[in-house]
């Protein structure tokens, strides 16, 4: 251990540097590597072309999620290209001895949901995946971030990537989140303050009372969206909440190994006197339920507010106008009362059991608005089973909702779950980019509570008005 005061990030990063290159990146060792069907096939082709092997097959885990249907998963996948990609993941995993939870496997689900829920994700680890929302795993005090396919090939063949060490940002949020204000609102608020590029080049540590009191599901939601302000990732120091979540999960350490790991994990905090390159402080009392109005996640406001003018929003006026034009919105429009067409709850951001509990808390005893199409997509089969066991399924069914099967679904609309052109979707996912949820689709990012309020009223509604 270093004698100098160190941040959580420094401790984990420095423990994984195999070699430092002068005026270059660090050779950085990876403890866990997740792969999925979309960003891995070309990496495996690369291995074949260079006649390389997978160096540590037991450190890589494969699951199919991005390009899978969310209905009729027992039937053959209709789209031949998608079927081919799923087959490639299965074949490559088998060939190199990699664990594979494909479609139909009871452990299958979204990569950033199944990793934590099976105890694969642990504090102090370095975790990568060819997916930018790998930042999710930072909730456990891991350094986790998304990589490109060339880097997937590096990890497969050498368990390392070449990575310059990012700068360090500390985000403190103190106080208590108000009624109807969720972890999703906290992170959407932070992104709206920092902008979609405000943390580029940094790795974030989230600290303060709000995160200390947050569940692991909530922490995952927050860390998940670190990339939406440009940060490679964000992390939260592991504590009793973290340890309680992990203990007993299938792949978590047990017995003596648990005690040894726990002793190490308890050292993973930022030392007093350690410094960051930049620090931001926010107050929980300033955060109300959030919603986005534009085409990047930084374009968000409190649900009771009006869309800012271009001058107030800052940045290029032409880009701002292009964005509002795409959305069919205008400066100074109120968000409350805007008619919506679709609701999507799910994704690696908000596809965990707590999110469906929140959604059900509002729809219970109410009915889905007739004109709204709702896609309710659990993050994994384990989450789906919990939804049934806890009676949430019955609440959803009585309110006129149908539960779909796990997958990334309308978050990126690679499968058939596409929002039609021009339609408005309140979505618990992470990106409101043009066309993200289907060509021409218009996305309003929000929490599961805001999504539920919109689903039962058919318009953008403040969930606090529906909470007893």
């Amino acid at each position, binding site marked *: 251990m270093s004698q100098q005061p160190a941040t959580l990030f420094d401790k984990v990063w420095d423990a994984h540097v195999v070699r430092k290159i002068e005026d*270059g990146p660090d*050779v950085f060792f990876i403890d866990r590597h997740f792969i999925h069907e979309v960003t891995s096939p*070309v990496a495996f082709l690369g291995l074949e*072309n260079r006649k390389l092997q997978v*160096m540590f097959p037991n450190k890589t885990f494969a699951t199919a999620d991005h390009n899978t249907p969310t209905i009729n998963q027992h039937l053959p996948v209709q789209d031949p290209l998608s079927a081919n990609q799923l087959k490639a993941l299965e074949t490559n995993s088998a060939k190199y001895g990699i664990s594979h939870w494909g479609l139909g496997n009871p452990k299958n689900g979204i990569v950033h949901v199944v990793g934590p829920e099976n105890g694969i994700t642990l504090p102090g680890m370095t975790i990568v995946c060819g997916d930018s929302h790998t930042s999710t795993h930072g909730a456990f005090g891991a350094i986790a971030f998304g990589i490109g396919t*060339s880097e997937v090939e590096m990890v497969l063949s050498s368990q390392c990537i070449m990575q310059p060490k990012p700068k360090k940002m500390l985000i403190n949020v103190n106080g208590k989140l108000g009624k109807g204000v969720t972890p999703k609102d906290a992170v959407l608020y932070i992104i709206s303050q920092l902008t979609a590029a405000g943390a*580029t080049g940094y790795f974030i540590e989230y600290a303060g009372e709000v995160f200390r009191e947050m569940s692991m599901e909530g922490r995952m939601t927050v860390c998940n969206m670190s990339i939406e302000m440009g940060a490679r990732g964000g992390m939260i120091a592991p504590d009793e909440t973290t340890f309680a979540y992990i203990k007993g999960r299938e792949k978590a350490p047990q017995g003596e190994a648990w005690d040894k790991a726990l002793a190490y994990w308890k050292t993973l905090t930022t030392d007093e006197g350690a410094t960051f390159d930049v620090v931001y402080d926010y107050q929980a009392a300033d955060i109300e339920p959030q919603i986005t109005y534009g085409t990047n996640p930084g374009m968000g406001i409190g649900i009771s507010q009006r869309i800012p003018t271009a001058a107030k929003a800052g940045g290029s006026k032409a*880009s701002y106008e292009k964005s509002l034009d795409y959305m069919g919105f205008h400066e100074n429009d109120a968000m409350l009362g805007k008619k919506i067409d679709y609701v999507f709850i799910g994704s690696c951001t908000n596809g965990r059991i707590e999110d469906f509990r929140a959604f059900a808390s509002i729809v219970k005893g109410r009915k889905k608005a007739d004109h709204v199409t709702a896609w309710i997509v659990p993050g994994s089969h384990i989450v789906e089973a919990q939804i049934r066991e806890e009676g949430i399924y019955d609440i959803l069914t009585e309110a006129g909702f149908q539960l779909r099967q796990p997958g990334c679904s309308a978050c990126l609309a690679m499968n058939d779950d596409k929002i039609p052109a021009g339609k408005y979707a309140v979505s618990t996912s992470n990106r409101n980019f043009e066309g993200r949820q289907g060509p021409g689709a218009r996305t309003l990012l929000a929490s599961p509570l805001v999504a539920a309020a919109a689903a039962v009223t058919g318009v953008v509604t403040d969930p606090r008005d529906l909470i007893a």
Partner: protein
Amino acid sequence: MAYDKFTVLTSTAVPLPIENVDTDQIIPARFLKATERKGFGDNLFRDWRYNGDDSPKQDFVLNNPIYSGKILVAGKNFGSGSSREHAAWAIYDYGFRCVVSSFFADIFKNNSLNIGILPVQVSPEFLDKIFLAIEADAKAEITVDLDKQLITIAATGESESFAINSYKKHNLMNGYDDIDYLQAMKDEIRTFADKSIY
């Protein structure tokens, strides 16, 4: 995958003065279903470039025949969002070898360097000068000299230096990649892995 060495590039440029161009715009998710790296250039900027019926959108810069070249010049925060390397592949496959902006998203920058595209970050003022030069003359040439780390607008002679670490610079100038480097140090990696508690 091997790529062409990058030394000095002199070319006309294609202007895209839009901020926060995310990788979903560069290549939408529905075109990520291939299991091989080919043909992505056809779908570069698909939904800005084509209408729903596949007819070209006449007002998009890639459909304007007066603009061409191996350099793409874009507004700040280029390549944000998804980590899909397919975005860099699409840009390379279309024929670009260099992207100039006043700010790049991290993952896109890494992906570009890994496949032989040079991302050149310039000051906002110099970016404006490039846009003005192209606006004045669509055939204005830009020279990017990697060895000197210098970008020059030929018509005005104005230039600005840009940063790149010496490791990546050496790789790009010689057509090497990180996998070559990592393969050469596998014993060291194995020794390191033996100490891991995970």
